[in-house]
């Protein structure tokens, strides 16, 4: 019943780290282009001066400043190399933008080489720390005291 050729054969190459589907690679490429396109749009259009990017449901309805408030304006500032203004809009951008860049890099590698990189070790811990930071940041920027004004999105 058993095939004879499972013994005494040198281990052959495996392709476990390769995505065999060209469609998946094209999708990765499309995601990179989408992020690049979004970056160009954000660099050209200042979200502080227009509403074309939509309105935040939470802020519009409740007036709260969530942890994402000012993120687009911060991204615009980062794209104009103005890190101080970016932090004034949303300090979390300094944490999330590198993550997005890393992800774009991984997607680009997948698109060009077919190598599908998994999340780096430490992603699980990073995710938990990120959650805690988001919650703390949200609480802090909604404390109605003047000394916390610096945490709410503001123009320098």
């Amino acid at each position, binding site marked *: 019943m*058993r095939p004879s050729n499972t013994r005494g054969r040198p*281990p052959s190459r*495996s*392709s476990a780290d390769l995505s065999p589907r060209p469609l998946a690679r094209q999708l990765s490429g499309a995601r990179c282009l989408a992020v690049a396109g979004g970056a160009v749009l954000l660099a050209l259009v200042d979200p502080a001066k227009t509403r074309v*990017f*939509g309105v*935040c449901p939470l802020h519009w309805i409740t007036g709260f400043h969530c942890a*994402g408030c000012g*993120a687009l304006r911060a991204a615009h500032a980062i794209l104009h190399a103005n890190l101080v203004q970016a932090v004034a809009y949303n300090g979390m951008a300094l944490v999330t933008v590198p993550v997005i860049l890393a992800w774009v890099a991984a997607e680009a590698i997948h698109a060009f080489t077919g190598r599908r990189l998994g*999340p780096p070790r430490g992603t699980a811990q990073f995710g938990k720390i990120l959650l805690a930071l988001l919650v703390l940041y949200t609480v802090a920027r909604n404390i109605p005291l003047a000394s916390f004004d610096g945490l709410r999105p503001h123009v320098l």
Partner: protein
Amino acid sequence: MSKIFISYRRHDSPGFAGRICDHVNLHFGNEAVFRDVETLEGGVDFVEAINSAVGSCAAFILVIGPRWLSAVDAKGNRRLDNHDDFVRMELATALARQIRVIPVLVEGADMPSAADLPDDIKAVTRRQAIEISDARFASDMDELTRALKSVLGQPKPTPPGIPSPVSAFVPPSHPSNPPPHRPFAAVAVPNHLVWSIISTACLCMPLGIVAIVQSNKCTSALAAGDVSAAQSAAANAKKWNLIALAAAGVVWFIYIVAAAINAAQQH
């Protein structure tokens, strides 16, 4: 639709079945494999469910471990002798519907002899079996992959010159955290973390937070080797991201309508 059905005994070789399943998924796509008829929702006729699940597959992988043949139920009766035994029903259905059955022998198990099997699955002993051992997992799996390819007619063969993941780990991609030789999980399940972050920052924080929680769950499950839990968490993360997108879209639409009405009234 699933193209490959994996049949295994919970009390026999669930670990190996999971590894085989993950490996096959990598080669034939995440939707390729159907397993665990036992997780069906309540009220579903399982005979019908097995029939449709097995019937829709092109190949049937039968994982046979050392306890596959002799496993007994709570009353001490051999499971294979029971007409309601899931494994027997799945296998009998596959044989009756002339689906390509590939017996896979794991943990040193032997192919059962026809005399030890009930009549409706005796035919399995005439199928060519593939032996998969722990020590030679990658090369043994290649054998199985080749057999599956001959049934399914896909995917394309691996381009030469790319190192095996068993011998070489993929270099890290995280630019802010680039220590060398850090291993990654062997199975790629997208955790949608970046999408969740974008949802949180730009669309709707409360819903985005739920998505981040699910993304974290996916990452942790993958680190623990639980691919099916990782896949369901990833699906949840995707779902909450889409809900966040929809919520933001609805509010944006209402906002635009409100602004337009405002402008019209001022005229």
